[in-house]
């Protein structure tokens, strides 16, 4: 187990490095940089900017250095926990993002828990009642959730919640807690606001999970040991839960890996619609205004979240299933 753990961590490090390089390249792709667009904007407003000032700003932001050096500076900074400098806000990225990173994490985590909590019982029901009306109906609802664009669902839910409860449920907490330090009251307010985004983002992943659990469980239920268990008079509940379900659980754990990118993607767009103080809205804005380090740090954080999530799911899988850790580095 320890060997496997070390191996997985060693694989993770170069992956993160390549991702950071990719992120940096993508962020640098648009022509010009933050300063050039800022300067054209200022000139369009009729303001004059002296060459010295431009040169000074360029040097200040480190934009005069070759890209490789900028990259090195950024990565080394990140290793120290310094995410760089946001041009637009004129503040270190660390201060701009505040608890956004943390709230993004909370949102993704709760969404995954929700997806599991919903798809687990439905998957079991669908498998044990194959081809019943319940099975068809639930599968169809799952598909519908998959096919509806998240942002629209968010809008509609937002509207109906507004009509039904009379309060605005946009955002992730009541306004009075916005710049407050974390407290129990704030935590409760976050919880009260969290359910809409969680449901909205969760719907798109639930269908896949249900179908996978259903297919796996059906495969297991056909096997002979299940027949034997029934023949020997094991109560149906035990004959389902004790062995077949455990076997069918493996892919469920392994799926965090593929679920996480999906959840994070969903969270990004839903956050924009619901104006949640997570990474999504700020990321879009930073991308549009070429705020290199802010956008880069957000992308990096999202990718980091995914990679770590996959790592956790691999470790959990290895603990569940000895075959996987004995096979060494081979994944899936």
């Amino acid at each position, binding site marked *: 187990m320890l060997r496997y753990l070390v191996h997985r961590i060693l694989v993770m490090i170069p*992956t993160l490095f390549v991702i950071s390089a990719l992120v940096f390249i*993508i962020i640098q792709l648009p022509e010009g940089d933050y300063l050039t667009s800022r300067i054209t904007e200022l000139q369009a407003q009729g303001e004059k900017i002296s060459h010295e000032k431009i040169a000074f700003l360029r040097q200040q932001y480190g934009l005069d250095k070759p890209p490789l050096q900028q990259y090195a500076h950024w990565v080394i900074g990140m290793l120290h926990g310094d995410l760089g400098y946001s041009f637009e806000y004129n503040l270190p990225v660390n201060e701009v993002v505040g608890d956004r990173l943390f709230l993004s994490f909370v949102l993704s985590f709760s969404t995954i828990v929700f997806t599991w909590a919903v798809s687990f019982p439905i998957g079991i029901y669908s498998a044990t009642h194959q081809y019943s009306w319940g099975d068809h109906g639930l599968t169809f609802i799952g598909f519908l959730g998959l*096919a509806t664009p998240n*942002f*629209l669902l968010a809008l509609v839910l937002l509207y109906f919640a507004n009509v039904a409860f009379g309060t605005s449920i946009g955002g992730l907490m009541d306004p009075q807690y916005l710049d407050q330090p974390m407290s129990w009251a704030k935590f409760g307010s976050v919880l009260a606001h969290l359910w809409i985004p969680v449901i909205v983002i969760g719907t798109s992943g639930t269908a896949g999970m249900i179908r996978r659990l259903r297919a796996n469980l059906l495969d297991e239920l056909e096997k002979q040991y299940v027949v034997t268990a029934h023949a020997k008079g094991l109560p149906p509940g035990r004959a389902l839960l004790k062995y077949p379900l455990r076997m069918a659980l493996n892919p469920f754990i392994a799926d965090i890996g593929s679920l996480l990118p999906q959840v994070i993607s969903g969270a*990004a767009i839903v956050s924009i619609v619901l104006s949640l103080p997570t990474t999504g809205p700020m990321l879009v804005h930073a991308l549009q205004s070429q705020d290199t380090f802010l956008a880069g740090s957000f992308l990096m954080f999202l990718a980091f979240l995914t990679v770590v999530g*996959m790592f956790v799911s691999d470790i959990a899988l290895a603990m569940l299933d000895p075959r996987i850790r004995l096979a060494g580095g081979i994944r899936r």
Partner: protein
Amino acid sequence: MEQGARLPHYVSDAPFDPYSIETLTPEQERFFLASQWRMMWWRFKRHRLAVGAGLLLLGFYLAIVVSEFLAPYNLHSRHNRYIYAPPQQIHLYRNGKLQRPFVYGYRLHLNLDTMKREYTENTRKIFPVRFLCAGEGYRLWGLFKGNLHLVCPSRRGTLFLLGTDRLGRDVLSRIIYGARISLTVGLVGIGVSFLVGLILGGLAGYYSGWVDSLVQRLIEILRSFPELPLWMALSAALPVDWSPIGVFFGITLILGLLDWTGLARAVRSKLLALREEDFTTAAILMGARPSRVIARHLIPNFMSHIIASATLSIPSMILGETALSFLGLGLRPPITSWGVLLTEAQNMNAVALYPWLMLPVVPVIIVVLAFNFLGDGLRDAADPYKA
């Protein structure tokens, strides 16, 4: 009995066919002689839902060829007097008598308290719906002049079956035109990802070794990236001065370039298995070049699987385009896709006051569902030899 005497035994002299046990009924013969594709077709036909979904999609794709004919209005025609008009209902009965379909005209009233345009039906104005009629002139595919429409409003009236938007443009017509872009985004995108996935997956599976591990690492890295933020970053990188058509191809390229990983994986694992088969070894021993072995012997063997999994990944592209356009990072007007149309319904006001602006989501849902069902059926049919 005497020694050497023959034992009496009986032989039936009725005609006997020693191969009788091996002869096949005509059905069996048909089954055993059928080609792989024919068997897939038989199997696919059993999957009712998938067949239905396939027919529906076929209809959709045929419809985008003649959008100009199907839409009652042109894509950009504005009706200044009908801004945010709600859908007009089609009536069949008037004074209890059956008539040809007609709509009532609208009476506009500007509510000065709420500053909202309120439309009420004016039951004295009757506009019969015309079929196969001359309406607004258009250029089919931008080439041929025409003015034939499937339905048009009566000469002096209007026909907004799904309402109008903030510029008084007919939502139904815009949805029909939008299908053109939305449906082709998926196809072009999947074409790109198909090509990349086939080449990279093929290389990885055929050569294995360091090529394989390189491609594998690449796939792992791309997969550990949340799609949408990456799409957003890439489409934000598209130059602002590109023409709308350029942006369209840029977006499809972005969607396709990030989607090939699943296909490449499928190709690779299939190739790894097929490489060990005898017929591959035979081909290699007979001196076939790798390109011939891959194209002639290996690809036909797993093509069906690849097509099935490609079908299943079209929906994510359509949804991706919709999401990107909705955020304003994807396609831009005058290019009209369902996502672009949905940007109109971006705030709560639209949901509360003009809910018909959300209607473009209906075809999105239908198409995504249909592709999912079709893909499911194709996947089941892809391996017809399995029981």
